């Protein structure tokens, strides 16, 4: 081994250890917040579980928007399809095991991701955005019309999941659902951390910056992006299924333009292109939406609006992105 190779091995080992450290830190933050939430709002676990489900949607959006640069205002199509898939499996097919329902939600999300990806990826920029809006309206209308399956505008009710693993019943206080949600989020987060820095993750970052360069390396941007859309569908579908299992109903709002737009707002608020950013945005937005709005029902939207404008104008990397950048500069200066 030459001196240079030894040095390299050391550098990469150190880099790997730092990444592993950040993974563990991320996991502890999620679990720490989960425990804090549980202690602070023991009577509001339903809200915290919904936050977890939405966090999965925002993470999923981050995969295609933050990491691949796809513009979409229709991402709830993946989330809603997952929710309906889990709900319909339970109500119409008697699949009431929560893990099987989760699997149905994931599968539904993957199929919706494949479909949306195949359509949305045909265009770029503004036309792409318009296609995504058209898609979410189509999905919404379809669910509305297929009322015998989806319950239409009344929502799909009567979802009664079995106890988790045969032991833990979904209780009235939502404890089981909450723990289920947090574990699901932790697992997804860990898997995604691995995916975004895998060769596939590098390929996606490359495509976002310069698809022509990627093609000149012999890789197909289209195939890669469709694949990412399917992964994104799995994540959003898991979020939808979690929502269906925990609330035991699925409404048309889970397949709405509003939810799509809100998830984009959350992502931008927290910071695109980073999994931590997606989580931060979800927590901050939903904290305002539910907790500040309870205290001050008239002004919470004003406050969210003002915060969003401030972030976009003064911290375009988002709340997490900006803090991370400042921290990095600080670390650099200290060295």
């Amino acid at each position, binding site marked *: 081994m030459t001196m240079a190779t030894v040095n390299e091995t050391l550098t990469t080992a150190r880099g790997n250890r730092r990444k592993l450290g950040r993974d563990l830190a991320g996991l502890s933050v999620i679990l720490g917040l989960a425990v804090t939430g549980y202690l602070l709002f023991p009577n509001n676990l339903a809200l915290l579980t919904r936050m977890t489900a939405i966090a999965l949607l925002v993470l999923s959006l981050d995969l295609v928007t933050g990491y691949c640069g796809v513009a979409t205002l229709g991402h709830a199509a993946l989330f809603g399809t997952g929710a309906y898939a889990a709900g319909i499996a339970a109500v119409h097919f008697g699949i009431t095991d929560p893990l099987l329902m989760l699997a149905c939600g994931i599968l539904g999300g993957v199929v919706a991701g494949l479909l949306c990806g195949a359509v949305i990826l045909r265009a770029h920029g503004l036309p792409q955005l318009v296609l995504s809006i058209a898609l979410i309206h189509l999905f919404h209308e379809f669910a509305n019309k297929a009322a015998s399956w989806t319950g239409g505008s009344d929502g799909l009710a009567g979802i009664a999941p079995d106890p988790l693993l045969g032991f833990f019943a979904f209780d009235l206080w939502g404890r089981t659902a909450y723990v289920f949600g947090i574990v699901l989020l932790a697992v997804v987060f860990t898997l995604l951390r691995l995916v975004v820095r895998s060769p596939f993750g590098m390929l996606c*970052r490359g495509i976002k910056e310069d698809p022509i360069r990627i093609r000149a390396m012999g890789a197909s941007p289209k195939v890669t992006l469709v694949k990412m859309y399917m992964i994104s569908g799995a994540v959003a579908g898991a979020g939808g299924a979690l929502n269906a299992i925990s609330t035991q109903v699925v409404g048309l709002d889970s397949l709405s333009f509003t939810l799509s737009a809100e998830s984009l707002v959350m992502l931008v608020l927290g910071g695109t292109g980073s999994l931590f950013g997606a989580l931060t945005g979800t927590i901050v937005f939903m904290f305002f939406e539910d907790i500040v709005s309870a205290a001050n029902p008239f002004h919470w939207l004003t406050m969210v609006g003002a915060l969003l404008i401030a972030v976009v104008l003064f911290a375009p990397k988002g709340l997490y992105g900006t803090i991370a950048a400042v921290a990095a500069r600080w670390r650099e200066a200290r060295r």
Partner: protein
Amino acid sequence: MSAIFEVRNLKRSFGGLAVTNDVSLAMAPGDRVALIGPNGAGKTTFVNLVTGNLTPDSGEVRIGGEDITRVNAMGRVRRGLVRSFQVTRLFQDMTPAEHVALAILQRGGRAGRLFGNYLAMPEVMAEVSDLIGKLGLRDQMHRRVREIAYGQQRLLEIAVALALRPRVLLLDEPAAGVPQSDTGRIEQALADLPPDLAVLMIEHDMDLVFRFARRVIVLAAGTIIFDGSPSDVTKDPRVREAYLGSYANAGHAA
């Protein structure tokens, strides 16, 4: 020797202007060809056409005897036809090591892997550090591209191309935009290219052309007006005229 790369009667026009006008050429393994010509002669367009970035109006492109005229850009790379860009196209936030690793993984059909990291793949890292070392980028290997000098970025363009293990390499002005003081490293990299690789290099710097090429092709207004040895090219009256014409035009425009 049989041709590894062959272009027959390639044509392409933009809005009535024939930018590539019936271009034919063939190259054998180990060839060192320089493609020269005045600004706007259609050199980059020629590369875009043969690599599948543009579609020709008519004509044929072959690699290793196989007709690839209808194969897309990705398929051509996988068959060993690789290019570099006149203006570097690199990922600003990635490191040279990541660029080269991505190319190596892609070549092996592993760039779509969802798990694992190239840093933990010893055989990939060995090749990365070997290639990076050969191009003198070792000190920059884990820095982000936006932080390294343009001359080093040009070397990285070459490293990425080589990591794809091409059979035919098309270099579009590999030294363009590099300060004179740094061209030596690039010239060394060109001299060190694998001997059996067929290389076609577009270049304006005639000193570099004469040192590198054993054959020179001159393109003017989309047509090949000279194809022969470097020693004959400056004597050719048509070449002189083409260059004089272009200078006259340039003078006119200014």
